[in-house]
Structures are given as structure tokens and as C-alpha cells.
């Protein structure tokens, strides 16, 4: 009996998640609250049922996430009896680092990249699951499912371990760590189809709704709280919008949409002609930017 492509992807991901639990001393699952994270959490719940997750779940909070993301996170982890760690870079908070005062690049580096390293070091995690997919971006297409990081959390793309069959080598030296990507072989469409098929809950921001937005540099920014400094003459207007990816609200562009159900979202996605990451300010620099960020420790 042949499995469908989603069943095969599901089984492969479960195998990867179980392998980490069985062979790593102190793993953690990074939870970004986005749709890919939701699928990854769902797969983890499946992998260990009826046991609860044998590792904690960690959210690196930049303090600029959408409020609805935080509500969703807390409810989801309570419903599923997760051992949730929320890490905030307190140094950054003390120095008042934010996307407006310091710019998106510094904000992302300090509150996300540095914060993640801080959290991994603090808890001594030897393996961290991430929800990245190989179809997202060119340099990810070459990254292994088990991807090794030096003690400085750097990725060396030229020195990756061969990864054959489904046999994973998760052995590391004391100061090294592994990033594990169970969704490596999923595409964006697979993710949406699986959410549809399995009825996986996702943050309501993915669905279109009247929301207050301002337009800046061709990007629609939602006024999620009163920290968004309005320029002279700038007035939030109500528009029916939704988000294709979720992150820090000032850095995440909304798209105008009428898609208020899951099938409508998928329909819209299939008929659209721009790729998913376009909504993210972070990828816009040079072509090789993601590869460079990852070498520096960005997830």
C-alpha cells in the first residue's frame, strides 16, 4: 500500500524528531509560533504520543511579536501540556533595543540571533529543532537535516557531514551543538495542505480581517500597539489584511486579502505570483544574505 506524499513527509519528520530525542542529551524545540512551527509541534506530539514531549519548547521573544502570537503561544502550550521556556535578551531590553530606535538589522541581530545563542548557552542545549524548509531559500537547499554548529554557533557550509539514507549522525563534541530541521523536505504548499488535512490550529493573523495599518516603503505595517511611532500626517487606516509570515510586527508586511478561511488562504497562495519571504524585510539585501546570516548564527 503506497503512502501519499504527505504521509511520507509526516513519517520522515517523525523519524527525525524521535532520533533526536533518543540520541541527544538535552534537546529543545524552537517555537516561533508561525505555521511551520505549528506543523512541527503537531508532528512532535504525534511522534511521542501517548507520552508528552520529552523535551522543552522554547520561544525566543524579541518583545515585538504580534500580541495575538503571544496569546496563541500561551494557550497552545497550556492545551498540550508543553514545557515552555520564553527567552528574552534582557541586555537588549535594558539598552532599549528595538526596530525603530536601532533599525531592523541591529534589532534582529541582538533580540533574535544573539538572544538565541544566549538561550542555547544558558540552558546547555545540545540540539535545537527548527522549522526551516529547504524550499525557502537557496542556501537552505544545501543544508543538512542535522546541521552542526561550532562552539560559536557558526555554520560551515563547506564542511557538512554526508547524510545518507535516513541514518543520522548526531554525535558532537562537548561545546558543539546541532540544529535539526525536521521539515527540510516540505514545501510551503505541503505545509498548508497538511494544516488543512490535519486541522492544525494556527494564529488568527493568517486569516484576513479588518486591521489598522499604515503604509511605509511599500510595506503595510499593522499598528499592533502604541509603540509604533507614527510619522507626521500618518493615520492608521482599517484594511482587510492578513499575514503570510509572522515575526516582529513592525518588520512584517501585511497583504490585502479577503481570504478568511483556510481553503481561501491556500487558494490565494496558489494563485499568487510572489514568493513567501517577500513579506520579510530581512531577505532584501544581497542575494547571498541568508547564507551569510546563517554562518553568523542566525537560525
Amino acid at each position, binding site marked *: 500500500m503506497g503512502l501519499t506524499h504527505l504521509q511520507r513527509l509526516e513519517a520522515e519528520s517523525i523519524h527525525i524528531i524521535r532520533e533526536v530525542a533518543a540520541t541527544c542529551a538535552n534537546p529543545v524545540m524552537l517555537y516561533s509560533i508561525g505555521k511551520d512551527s505549528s506543523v512541527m509541534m503537531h508532528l512532535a506530539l504525534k511522534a511521542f504520543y*501517548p507520552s508528552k514531549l520529552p523535551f522543552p519548547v522554547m520561544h525566543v521573544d524579541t518583545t515585538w511579536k504580534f500580541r495575538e502570537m503571544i496569546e496563541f503561544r500561551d494557550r497552545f502550550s497550556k492545551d498540550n501540556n508543553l514545557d515552555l521556556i520564553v527567552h528574552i535578551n534582557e541586555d537588549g531590553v535594558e539598552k532599549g533595543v528595538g526596530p525603530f530606535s536601532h533599525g531592523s538589522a541591529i534589532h534582529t541581530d541582538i533580540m533574535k540571533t544573539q538572544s538565541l545563542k544566549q538561550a542555547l548557552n544558558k540552558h546547555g542545549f545540545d540540539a535545537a529543532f527548527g522549522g526551516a524548509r529547504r524550499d525557502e531559500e537557496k542556501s537552505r537547499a544545501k543544508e543538512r537535516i542535522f546541521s552542526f554548529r561550532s562552539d560559536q554557533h557558526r555554520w560551515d557550509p563547506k564542511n557538512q557531514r554526508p547524510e545518507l539514507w*535516513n541514518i543520522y549522525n548526531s554525535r558532537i563534541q562537548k561545546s558543539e551543538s546541532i540544529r535539526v530541521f525536521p521539515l527540510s523536505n516540505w514545501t510551503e504548499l505541503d505545509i498548508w495542505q497538511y494544516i488543512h488535512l490535519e486541522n492544525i490550529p494556527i494564529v488568527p493573523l493568517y486569516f484576513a480581517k479588518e486591521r489598522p495599518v499604515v503604509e511605509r516603503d511599500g510595506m503595510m505595517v499593522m499598528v499592533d500597539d502604541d509603540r509604533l511611532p507614527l510619522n507626521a500626517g500618518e493615520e492608521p487606516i482599517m484594511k482587510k489584511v492578513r499575514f503570510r509570515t509572522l515575526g516582529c510586527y513592525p518588520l512584517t508586511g501585511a497583504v490585502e486579502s479577503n481570504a478568511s478561511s483556510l481553503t481561501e488562504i491556500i487558494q490565494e497562495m496558489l494563485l499568487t505570483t510572489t514568493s513567501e519571504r517577500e513579506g520579510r524585510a530581512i531577505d532584501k539585501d544581497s542575494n547571498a544574505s541568508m547564507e551569510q546570516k546563517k554562518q553568523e548564527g542566525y537560525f
Partner: protein
Amino acid sequence: MADKSYEIMQSDQIASDIDGYLRDQEQKSYLRFITCGSVDDGKSTLIGRLLYDSKLIFEDQLESLESDSKKVGTQGGDIDFALLVDGLAAEREQGITIDVAYRFFTTEKRKFIVADTPGHEQYTRNMATGASTADVAIILIDARKGILTQTRRHSFITSLLGVKHIVVAINKMDLANYSKETFDEIERDYRTFVEDMGFETVECIPVSALKGDNITEAGENMSWYTGPALLKYLENIDIESHEDEAPFRMSVQWVNRPNLDFRGFSGTIVSGEVKPGDEIVALPNAQTSTVKSIVTYDGELERAGQDQAVTITLVDEIDISRGDLISEKLRRPEITDQFQAHVIWMHDDPMLPGRPYLIKLANKTTSGEITDLKYKIDVNSFEHEAGKTLSLNEVGVCNFSLDDKVVYEAYKDLAALGSFIMIDKMTNATVAAGMIDFGLRRATNVHWQAVDVDKSTRSKQKRQKPLVLWFTGLSASGKSTIANLVEKKLLALGKHTYLLDGDNVRHGLNKDLGFVDADRVENIRRVGEVSKLMVDAGLIVLTAFISPFRSERRMVRDMLDDHEFMEVFVDTPLEICEQRDPKGLYKKARSGEIKNFTGFDSPYEEPEQADIHLETADISAEEAADLVIKAIEEKYL
């Protein structure tokens, strides 16, 4: 430009019937393939074209592609599809692909995962990595150049990794005048040379990746070609295993123990099917039980099959841990701590026989070593070569000895239980990949009693213990003479025997073999295999071969159980052999008429610890035969 009709049809359905569309899409099958070829063959262009034509490129990516094409493209401002595929910055600059990259695209029938690997010899390991998970391999050939060394290498590696289906994309047909004759000639050559590689299907398709001919649609330039376009072929090829009766096997990955009342075994089913009520055995400890339930997050299952990741509970409390194998009770896989395997070396530090490495096979990790590099295989010519170590990207056939027993199957029978990686104990690097050929020392196959008539029943019937008496020594040392006498004496004692020597083997079974080292090794291997079958039949086998190399004698010993192999060293000094020279061979060797003659220009490696050592200078053949009988009498007769 791509034919848009399929996309328009699809878009119509998405717009008018999204639920129906999703239902269809969620039932799609899945195919993984690898593309083998070098930049020159147009590999990246081919993949770029597949992504482009199946509309997997979004507008913003297309813009970036167009600007890149102008900046660094090689198509004079036209879209350079190769740029879509070559990912890492370093690769873009050098214009080569240096790693394995995975690409994804979807058609209405299938989801595809493409492993895109470099074709140069120094990236053999990357290609092996991509091939390890591929259902199909696309081998690119430049129509203007035909079959090249690299074609041979790519075919060999895909065959080594057990890829069953080959598609030969004969590319750049646009530069070969779309000539049918050129295509036919390459197809004929290719089919001839892969005849013995064990592929289940080979399909040859003439294409132009650059122009789009026969990629998604036939196009008009090659009306003489009536076969499917590449994408159509990939959409329709049947890769399901048709072995309905494959025995159930699941390697235990994780023991699921949420509380004292629940004990489940989680893992991925690698073969067959399981249902509650099935009788199983947990190996290697061989405890049996019955399946109680198949537990999943979505409820209990009535049955589960290959590739599913499940959790199984059993009726009895038996001790099972990670790395154990749960199997159907009757048809069990084998257990061994020694085996022969093909190895691809993947690290800069060379393989050292005798050095302990970690071996990870299915979910079991144990320490082990390579006891013997039997030979290396040249990946371009497929020739066997002698060697002491394996360097990066070299392929060899090795004997392994492990500290712990593993449950396994031959790689060709079940890759999931026949594949393993080797890990350096100091650096934790993955240094090699291995594929098991067969186990050595079958004595450990404790559970073959399921077979009604076996070796022990056959030997009981003959009232003897089966045995191989392996006579080794120089040419004209008296091996055959003594072996003949021993056989007569055994016959007189009422024993069932058979004598294998050059005369009855070289004229039939091994008439295709010559006297170079590789043939000598193969000669002995075959004699060893035949001896093993005869031992299984309960016979006492006598063999008389020069068998000059220790490693081959050792190989035969390893094929047999303990105490089934006795090495008889017929130790006659070279001068005496040369004096006797019954066939005049020494004379010819001296005059240089015969090459590779043992004792002259080809070495004889004396046994270090023969079971029976006959110094024939001082005794007659009759006395020597008596000594042999005496030596085996107590134990065997």
C-alpha cells in the same frame, strides 16, 4: 517558453473548486530522484527548466534570476536556468556545484524531490549521498560527446547505491541537429554497458534542456521520437515494491514509556505489514510475543505498513531497547558480528584497517573495524585493484568485524537493514557509507531451525560432520595426489566426499577466468562458495588449489562455520617442485613463456598457522594422506 495549458487548467480548478483541488492534491504520490551529470552536460539547466516549466518560480525569484542572468549568466543575456539551482555563493562564483542541493516541485500527479549533485570525481561522496534516497536516477549525456568516463562513473555509483530505475537524458540534441541516428547510437551503447548493473528499468529520452524539447512536452523538433517527455515519464514511473509478502520488520528507535501502565516501541516500519494479533520476535535476543496494538496520535490502527512511523505495544512484557529489531516471527533477518560490505570512503583521513570506528546500522550503534580490504573498485573502469587503505571518494569491498551483534539483511534485499555509516570515534565525523553484501560465519544464524531440512539433518543422515579440507601449496607440490589418496581412504571409511581441483573447476564453472590476481581471487571465491554449498549438503569437501593469498584462504574460512575449515599446507620446497614439474610448467616459467607463475613472479603466502602441516620432503604421499586422516579422525569421523 513553457506550455501554460496545464497551469491554466490547474488555476481554473483552484479558483472554482478549491476543496476538490485539495482533496486531489492530498492524495498525490511522491518521487525522489537524483540528477547525475556535470555542468557541461547541462544538469543545472535541466533542473532549472523543470522548476521553471512546472511554474515553481515566483515573479520575485524570476526578477532576481533575470538580473543575475545579465550579471553572471552564460546565455548572453537570456535566462540562465542554471543560476536558479547553484545555491552557495562560492559555487556561483566558480560556476560549479559543490554539494548536494535538494529541490522541490509538484505536478498534478506527484511531488518531486530532486537531489542535485556535482558530477566530478572528487564529489563521488556527494553523489552517493544523493543516490542513497533516490527512487530514480537521471543520467545526463551530452549528445555530441556520447558515453564518457563520467557516464560510467555515475552509472556505477547509482547501481552501487541500489537505485533501480535509470533515465538517460541525452541532452543538447539541439546542438546535434536533433539527429535520430546520434540518439540511437548512444542508446545502444548505453544499454550494452549497463546490462549487468542490475537496474530494473532503463529509459532513454532525447532532450534539449536549454530549448525545452521533451522536458515537459514533446515539442516539434524530434517528431521521430515517440516515447514520453521526461516529466511525463517521471510522473508515471511505477516505483512501488510489488512484493506483497515482504516480511514485517521495524527497528526500535525509541521506547515509549509515559507511565508504568504503558510500554510501547516506536519506530519506522522498514518492510512488510503488521496487525494486532501478529506473532513477532524481538532480535537479537529472540524473545517472542504478540502485537497488542498499533498506537498513534490519531487512534489505534488495524494495520500499518512500510515507511509508516508507529508505536507498537505487545501482549507480553519483554525486554526490548533501542536498536533491537521487531520482526515477523517466522521469517527473520540474519544476525551477525562479521560481514562483507561495499564501502564508499567520504573523508580526507584515509580508512585504516584495524582501527575501531563506530558503525551505525538502522538504530544500532556499535564499535567495529575493517579487518580486511579485499579490493578497491575503480569507479571509472570498475576494475578491481589491490590496496591497503581507502582514500576520499574511493570504493572498496571490505570485511568487517563488530564488537556487538547486529540484525541485518543484504543491502540489495532490504536497504534499510543493509546500509550503515561509519563514524570516527575521535572527531565524530561521518567517514564512510557501507552496504552489506553478506554475513560471514553463519554459525551465528541460530534461528535457521525454522527450515525443516537443514545442514545438521543432512549430515546426521550421512553420519558425518561436514568439512572442507583445503589443500594449499606450490604447483607440483603434491596437493592433488595427496587429496586423491585422502578421498579414497575416506570412501573406504564410508564417508561422503567430493574433490574439487583445477581440472574439474577450470574447465567448467571457472572457464571464464585467467591467472591475473583478480581472476585468481575470483577463482577461489567461487570454489569457496561451492564448497560451502557442499558442506551445507553434509559432504566432506577436499580442494586442491595453489590458493597463494592468505586473504582468500581467510575469506573461505570466514564463509564457513567454526571447525568446518581445515587448512592443509602441502609444504614442498620450490626446488623439489621444479624437479618434479609433471606438466612442464616450471620450465616455461623459467623461460618466461608463462607470466604470473606462483613462486616466480607471483608470490605464495605461506599459511601462518595451518591446521595440518605436511612437510613432504621427508614423507611419501601415502604417509601424508594417513597423517591427514589421523588429524581429522577424532573430531570428524
